[in-house]
């Protein structure tokens, strides 16, 4: 149940993120869209490894053995993915700052120097 909710929320967030990246001309808003897109993907990743009623995959003492826990691999992956996502978002924002400094605008369609 929780898994299903997580997957559907994640997918919804992916679509929302894409939608806002595609419809907002403002670069900052586009970046926010990408962040939502990322969060959606992370949710989907987590939910893939989820086992109903499972605990955190941490074995701290012997009594934990045999208890059902969620798949640790997606959890590890999602950590990496979050870090990468953070890096890319930071990078995009750096770009946004530089672009604003050069041109005084954040409209994506003002940056069409290169085409055809």
């Amino acid at each position, binding site marked *: 149940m929780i898994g299903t909710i997580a997957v559907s929320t994640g997918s919804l967030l992916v679509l929302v993120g894409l939608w806002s990246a595609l419809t907002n001309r403002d670069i900052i808003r586009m970046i926010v869209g990408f962040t939502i897109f990322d969060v959606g993907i992370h949710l989907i990743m987590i939910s893939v490894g989820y086992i109903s009623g499972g605990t955190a995959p941490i074995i701290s003492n012997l009594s934990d053995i045999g208890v059902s826990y969620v798949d640790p691999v997606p959890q590890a992956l999602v950590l990496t993915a979050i870090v990468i996502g953070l890096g890319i978002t930071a*990078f995009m924002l750096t770009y946004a700052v530089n672009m604003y400094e050069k041109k005084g605008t954040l409209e994506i369609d003002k940056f069409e120097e290169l085409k055809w």
Partner: protein
Amino acid sequence: MVEPIYLIVIALGAAFLLGLLRKTGSALQIALTLAALAGMVFISAQWAYGIIKGTTQAAEIFTSGMNPPLSINLFMGRSEAVLLLLVNSAAFLSTMYLGREHKKTSVYMLMLLLVFVVGLNGIILTRDLFNLFVFIEIVSIASAGLIALRSDIRQLGAGFKFIIAGALASGFMLIGIIFTYYATGSLNIDVITGMMSPALASAGYIGLFLVFIGIMIELKPFPVNGWGIDAYQASIPPVSALVAAGTATAMFYAFTKITAMTGGIFLNASMYIGALTFVGMNVVALKQTAARRLLGYSSISQVGLLVLVFSLVKIFGIAGGELIVFGLLVSHALAKAVLFWLSGIIGKESINDWGIIRKRNILIVAFAVAVGALLALPPFPSFFAKWELITSLAVKGQYGWIAVILGGALLEAVYLMRWFGNAVKDSFNEEDNLDFRFGTLVPVITGTAALLALGYFSANLSVFENNINWLLPAVVIVLLLLDFLPAIVKNILLIAAIAWYGYPLLQAIEGYRSIFAAIFVIGAVITLLPGFMNKGRRPGFYPAVSMMFAGLVGIIEATDMLTFFFFWELMTLGSYFLILRGKKSKPHALSYMLFSLGGAYLLMTGFSMSFAEAGGTSIALDILKTVSGSSLSGIITILLAVGFMTKTASAGLHIWLPGAHAEAEGDVSPMVSGILLKAGVFGLLMTFIALGDQSIGKINIPYVLSWIGVITALTANYMAAMQEDAKRLLAYSSIAQMGYALFGISLMSHLGWLSALSLAIVHFTYKVILFLSVAGVVHRVKTRNMYQMGGLITRMPVTFFMVLVSIIALSGIPPLAGFSGRWLTYNAVIEKGWLLQGVVAGVSGLIAFLYLFRLIFAIFLGQLKDVHRRVKEAPFWILLPQILLILLVLYLSFFPGAFLRPIGDIVSEFHPEGALVWNGATAVSEFGYWNGEAVMWVFIALFAANFALLFFLNRGAQKIKQFNIVYAAERPARPETTHFAYNMFAPYRKALGFLEYPITTKFWSGVADLMHSIAGFTRRIYTGNGQTYLLQIIVFVVISFLLSNGGK
């Protein structure tokens, strides 16, 4: 052997160390970076060498002390080692190139660059899906940083588009990876490959598809790649070079891993995406003038080709496919890196400003090598790869794909050769400077040398046994290296080389090849003689001319199709460079090259088809004979014949010739007109000797060719008569003569072939003489327009005599050698019964008198122009070859049996019936006889008698001085219009002007215009708007999904 993990350790370590060295001088920083990259080059070279030599085993590298699938593992095999060597070398050289740029930015740039290289190494080495994703992200972030190094507005825009497109693609990939993990329970590529089954492919389809399409987008497929092109254009050249050579290579390798992992279920999709990208990018590139953007187009199209070829190799199970892909990949990576580096040295935005490249000859050589490698010309690895690819596809019957690949390549040739022509010919501002320094030069030279060296090795790696004589191309290289010497020295060297190689060749070679060998070798020596007039260095001439003659000799010696094709293309390339040297020859050289390449592709297809028909084992030229009975023999004949007819410039394929031959330098025209055209005749003979009289359905191919031959002769003779330019006149005359040769061959009889072969010889003699005579005249009077000449008989009597004898020989009237060809043709026509064609040939012979008369009259007779009063006889070195050849013409005229008999013996081998019977000096055919010697004596007697008579009658005649003529009261505004030789045949033009309607030119320029408008229209999808690009990617993914899923 250093562990591969150090590839990553060294680069990351150096990057961290650079952080500590922030405050030190830039020299130390760059030295550290270069040292790290050199170490990586060393490690990859060591592995590549060891694995290829077999002294080292491919190795798996485990991390974190556990075995996969619990940990990430890397794999170093043969492909990995070679690709790493390529990528790391490109990185090393690009860093070297950066040098000065580094001072303008900061140490962070070097750190970014190292991280970028770590990413590329990781992509190639890793066997873990998620790890692959991480490395792709590293590359993407680092390249987004490198793109915007200078932080100018274009770079920022391009970088931002690049990063959002990358984020989208990696988002898809990440979802794909997690779904794949869900379906398979593993992230290890090898484990997933092992468990892949149709059921799994179906259950995990969405995940696998998203991984596949994510990688695909990273490869920048047409038409959703505007962001990638912008990045190529905006980056500084060394970064673009690194992206083209490094990222493209690594991403392509990632694509091959994913293809293996998905069990090939997406091969159809990648095949179509690759084809679309290859052709689409080449089409849109036609209209592009920004140099680096054009290179971006070309890079992406080449990656498309790689994807297409890889998919075809896998789908059709082509043996040796790995080498094909490698040949193309390595050629592309090196060539594109060289071109990007060059674009930085040139420093010009537009491809029309590349004339400045001529300030340094070495840069032109590098440019030529890079373009040649991209176009898969010999001797580069791509040439051999393409040959294997096309022959293999033919074996599998995939002619549609052959057409796609060769058609796309021809489009690529259009813009690359046009660019090259502009660079060689366009003017430039002397004050502009090149970024020409040690750091930029070493990468360019290394890349160029590597391409040449790899070409040599790939010939040996080829699955086909070939007998390429590397001595011939080596001569070209030697002359290229000796280009600093004076022209006279190089001329002596080349003549000596040809004589040294050619003399034993002429003695050893037999059959119809010997005739062409004689024309090529003797012709080469004779036409090189005028070269002694050059006092300077004549840079670039000798490599080009030696390349052409090497090609000509090579096709004579070739016994297998690969070797033949190798030298055929070498000859084309050499003659293209030669023609391009003329002052105004730029457009003509381009059309020559394009028609020749088109023809060469037809040859390649024809050869491949016969290879496939003959069982796909032998590429010997002899197998052409064995396919003469197969169902495809008619098509093979047409492919080969049309391919060779582009070289003989038959009607419809001729538009390149008049300009190319007329605009070429004075001593080049006789080479290309008198000698080079015979290569086409040689090819046609070779084709018909092997394949014989073929038909398709009810259409007899020789019959069609006979009409093409005589129509070529008729129209070209007419066009020749209408020229004002003496060299264009001779050029059209050559087209017509080759029309006769084609007609002779198409008769498919002893006499027909005898006429064609004798025509090949005599046309060589008189056309070389005529072009040299005209060259001598042009040398003295500085114009090619005949109406600006006149009366030169008194000033240049020797040249006059040469022209007189040659036009008599050319016109085919007794007593000179040209008559033998004509006499034979008529005999052959009557024998064959093709009287209608015979009539057309006869009429065109009459028209030929018009232009021959015009030539000698307008130049030598009539009034001497005032400005030409002090004109001297042509220089000795131009006269000498003419004198030698005129002696040959007279000898052949006196003793036609001297060459008709041996040629007849050769022809009898193929057409024993209908041979001439020789009765002493008299040749007897079914329909008549001819004694050249007797005719000659009669003619001499008559001539002497008439000459004496006229001399006697005119002894008291008054000489009319030029200014005895007066104008009636007014001086004409345009004096040439009152000159008889201007528009000399105006009445004929009134009657036959429709023949001049440039139907062929219109057709071909229509084709060109159409392609360019398609390009102009299509490239508007690249709006420059980042958001549009995002939308395009999403639509592309959806459409690909629907199409690929629908196909299941």
